[in-house]
């Protein structure tokens, strides 16, 4: 029996590994931004390099999984949904990586009074991506648990919207130059996008679950 399902277990572990990369990416992102805000640029750049490697690995892994699912005609009735979920989850990791890269390229000036709110915004956005991954994992094994994860993602997404709005209000009422204000707003928008993309993945997830119950 073990021999019969060897390939299945391989694809299963590849999917788990891929989802692990998204979760790990979130942690590395949080650390990277923290080092940036603390001015520890060497460690920040190191985190950026790790994150870029992770993204590359995730892309390769996703393509391998996709070809396995197609070539071996695995889960034919859910294959479209699964591939859609994996691809849209990949976009979450892409946004995370791109955002950290933009910190490195554009070196935004984050005023001291919004550093804490910035870190909170990052924390909540990454919570969104973590619960999205949890939801996808549950989709494979325990459909009933998916709903809990989706609810949490929606809650965290609303919170990130509120936090991002507060940051923008604070920034635009400060004495900074308009260009710097717009620059900070741009970064808060990018971090918020992590939550938005996670929410989009959850919308797909909710539909995929309904289809499984049909």
């Amino acid at each position, binding site marked *: 029996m073990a021999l019969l*399902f060897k390939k*299945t277990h391989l694809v299963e572990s590849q999917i788990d590994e891929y989802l692990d990369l998204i979760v790990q990416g979130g942690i590395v992102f949080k650390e990277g931004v923290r080092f940036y805000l603390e001015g520890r640029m060497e460690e920040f750049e190191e985190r950026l390099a790790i994150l870029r490697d992770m993204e590359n690995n995730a892309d390769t892994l996703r393509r391998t999984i996709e070809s396995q699912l197609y070539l071996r005609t*695995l889960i*034919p009735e*859910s294959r479209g949904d*699964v591939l859609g979920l994996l691809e849209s989850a990949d976009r979450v990791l892409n946004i995370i990586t791109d955002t950290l890269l933009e910190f490195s390229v554009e070196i935004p000036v984050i005023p001291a009074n919004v550093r804490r709110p910035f870190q909170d915004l990052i924390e909540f956005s990454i919570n969104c991506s973590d619960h999205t991954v949890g939801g996808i994992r549950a989709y*494979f*094994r*325990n459909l009933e648990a998916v709903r809990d994860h989706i609810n949490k993602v929606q809650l965290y997404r609303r919170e990130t919207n509120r936090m991002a709005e507060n940051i923008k209000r604070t920034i635009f009422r400060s004495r900074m130059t308009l260009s710097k204000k717009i620059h900070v707003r741009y970064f808060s928008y990018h971090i918020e996008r992590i939550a938005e993309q996670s929410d989009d993945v959850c919308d797909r997830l909710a539909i995929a679950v309904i289809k499984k119950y*049909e």
Partner: protein
Amino acid sequence: MSAVTLFFISSGIFLGWSLGANHAVNVFGTAVMSKMVRYRVAAVVAGIFVVLGAVFGGAGTTRTINQLGAVNAMAGSFTVSLAVGIAVAWMTKLKLPVSTSQAIVGGVIGWNLFTGSPTDGEAIMKILGTWVTSPLLAAAFAFVLFKAIEWLVKRARVHMLEVDAYTRTGLLVVGALASYTLGANNIANVMGLFVSATPFNDIAVGSVLTFTGTQQLFLIGGVAIAVGIFTYGQHVMVTVGSDLYRITPLSGFVVVLAESIVLFLFSSVWLEGLLRSMHLPTLPLVPLSSTQAVIGAVVGVGLAKHGRGINLQVLGKIAAGWVIAPIAAFLMAFVMLFFVQNVFEQPVIADSQYNVTASVLKAVATEGVNIDEVKPLVGKNFSSATQLRNTLEGLDRFSKAEVSVFLRLAKIDSLVVDSVGTASVAGDQALAPAQVRALKRMHGKVFLHPCDMEFAFSAAVIRTDSSSSTLWESLSPEQRIALTDAFRVRSSIVPKM
């Protein structure tokens, strides 16, 4: 085997091909349509197991078809098979999921009516009964199985990919099982009509195994079904299957499993023997419609999902097919028999003689028919069924059903008790030593009517350690039919009256 015989059997082969083309969808439709199993793999597995089922498990249901109407002339068998084959192929072309089992019943009744042969009411009720019970039973099995598997998958929290792998393996296994039961159950439809006129002799393989003439006939039929699956099965799966079986692979697994369980229940001689030995009621061995069983199972799964996935329009279309199939086969058989007999001048019924004896009247009376008026007929011979029917109807005393009883019991059917090798005659239900001893005592006895044999067997007492009974009582219905078949003498050596 002569070219003429081969020509006549060709209609059975054509019917087998039609059955394979039409029924592959019931066995592997869900697996192939959902892309869980490749068509080529499905066709190979189905082909192999259909042949195995036909050769090794096909005996039980054939007896019921022969009981319904013993089509006893090659040209008759040819015409009925061809009519049914055309009806099935035509309806397949019209994308109607047709039941070969139902069509064959229509064809045989057409032959009975055309030739004036009696239609066994008991056999027809037995068959009609299963047309109702088999879909209901399949629905019940599918409902319970689906709920159980759903609970298990939820509880065990198995990964979707593992469920997929298990389902894939399961679909192949139950597909093979369903193919075996399809072969075992439906070979009667394909070759059953030729059994009473099989041109093959038994072939002994070593000293243990005998490949009987009937098994050789079934092998040809099984191969024809397999060829039907290979050549046209995929087309039917795409046209008929896409409307009917658009369900998930897991539901598909449950549907095919429920179908094969039901088909197995109604075709297993072994199971019947087991139930009888445990003094439990047995299920009749009847060629079932696998389409009906599948539809029942699809509805069962739909109900288990709270009514989701049941397409009433499609169901209505299928139900219409169930009515149209036997009627179309009946009409086609009737018209074609007319042409074969009158235009091509081929005998569609073998000459049968009838003789009313005291024992025949006794047997008629046991079936509740008043025999007072016919006592003067004792000892008279009738050269055809029509002659006896006209005589009885001329008395103006008997209903059509009662006349049928006379026709069935008065037909001359030469039987010679041959106790050599009788122990293995009844296949899975081998005779007990006491029964064999009783038969040995009657070795060589000749009976003109089966009822004569019944009375003689009823008079022979057998004693075992615990009880005593008559030989007839000790035999199961299957054993009685098997022994009657084994003792039947072919027309060339019918003793002169």
